[in-house]
């Protein structure tokens, strides 16, 4: 696969200049996600008010894919209801499994830039780390 479609500008941009890679104050939710096989790790934090995600951030260390994917995710879910965020997580994970329709990938907006990772088994875990963590964190607590 072509380098461009994979480490594209969206990914390198979010990796170099993350918007949300910092801790937030008094988070309502916090969870750590790790990929033991490659050592990617993130700690995801969210503030939720009346069922709406009002603030988000993450700290961590890992490859560009894992860090950019988490950054894109947080950017997308801020301002959304938790159910909507869970819906996006579901779409994203299905996209990475090559199970999402083109319309669904459109719905993922910027996160759709990671679609090609579905062809890279070795990197799938990196791309879904943030989304999995989000899913576990807010999916569990109702």
């Amino acid at each position, binding site marked *: 696969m072509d380098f461009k479609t994979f480490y594209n500008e969206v990914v390198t941009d979010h990796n170099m200049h993350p918007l949300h890679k910092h801790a937030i104050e008094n988070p309502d939710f916090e969870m750590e996600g790790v990929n033991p096989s*490659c050592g990617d790790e993130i700690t995801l934090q969210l503030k939720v008010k009346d069922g709406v995600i009002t603030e988000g951030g993450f700290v961590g260390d*890992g490859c560009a*894919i894992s860090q950019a994917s988490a950054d894109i995710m947080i950017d997308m879910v801020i301002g959304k209801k938790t159910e909507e965020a869970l819906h996006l997580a579901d779409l994203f994970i299905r996209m990475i499994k090559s199970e999402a329709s083109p319309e669904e990938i459109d719905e993922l907006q910027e996160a759709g830039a990671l679609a090609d990772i579905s062809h890279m088994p070795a990197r799938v875990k990196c791309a879904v780390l943030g989304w999995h963590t989000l899913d576990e964190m807010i999916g569990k607590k109702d």
Partner: protein
Amino acid sequence: MTDQELKDNVIKYRKLFPLLSQDIAYLDNAATTQKPVAVLDAMKAYYEEDNANPFRGVYDLSERATERYEEARAKTAAFINASTPEEIVFVRNATEALNLLAYSWCEDNISEGDEIVVSVMEHHSDFLPWKYMAEKKNAKLVKLEPDETGAVTDEALDKCLSDKTKLVAITQVSNVLGRVNDIKHIAEKVHAAGALISVDGAQSVPHMKVDVRDMDADFLSFSGHKMYGPMGIGALYAKKKHLEKLRPFMYGGEMIATVHWDRVTYAEIPHKFEAGTVNVGGAVGLSAAIDFINEVGWDIMEKQEEKLTLKAVNGIKEINGIRLIGSDRPEDHKGIVTFMVDDVHPHDVADIMGRAGVCVRAGHHCAQPLMDHLGVKSTCRASFAFYNTEEEVDKFLTELSKVRGLMGYGF
């Protein structure tokens, strides 16, 4: 040997590796090496002509299988200059050899308050078994730390040795730093302190002449698959006097002399440590790999690996934004060159290089305590075998120099 002769030889022997006809630069030889056709043929011939369960049958075929297996043992013993073939126990790999040793030896030789010295650069396979047994026995695990170039100094070693030291576990070549430890010298000190030395030979046996008697190692562990042999076969060398006193590790068929409900006697060494049906096919493959190494010879192998390492280390130093791990002298790297690319995570580096057809490793290399010691989480590693070429190192350097740019960073 002139440079041209070396080149010709490398090309000649490289052709004997079917996998290397693929259009990739395979630079992950510390993980596993490719196999020459002689090894593949020997295994095929064994299964086509001599296969039976060894030791069990009295018919001719079973005897041939037994012979093939014992020939492999003798060859392996000679390869590392063991005194007798009985000093070789066949296992699956270095990890199994180290587990066998740690479990069985510590059980009878370690008690509360004793000390086991383990270097911080050990592979997890030479760390976790000792750690487990030390905890089980309420013994102390003492950390031997190399200096920043990866060298084990006398001061560092002296600090670790005491009258409580029972054993020192150390690798002959670090799979991250590539530094060769002077085992002969270390063994002398360890023995003077009244302890034994267990050497992890996983990265040394494939790349240099290892002589267990000359360096006076009590134990040596290694894997066949890192020395052009098949996966699933490796060896534990132990001095006969130690092996005779070692309790079995696994129990079952083939490791016994007599078994009754209330009374069991075990087989002689080394069979006592080889419970169950053994891996004759693997041993035959390892034997062919040793023949192959002997045929090529250390002169060619070491000269080529040194040449590639020199080129890689010097090349890396010329690229902006790349940091070498360990010594910055090429001669301190036994075919293993570990590095970091500024701002770019090692997994991205390995992925980008992999797309360009250069296979390098990224991660903690099963040496997380060393990563902690070095203050890094993970690194990239290129590791050479004699069949690698200068063109491959050039390709490695070219692709490496592009990585930061591709990830959006300036050069």
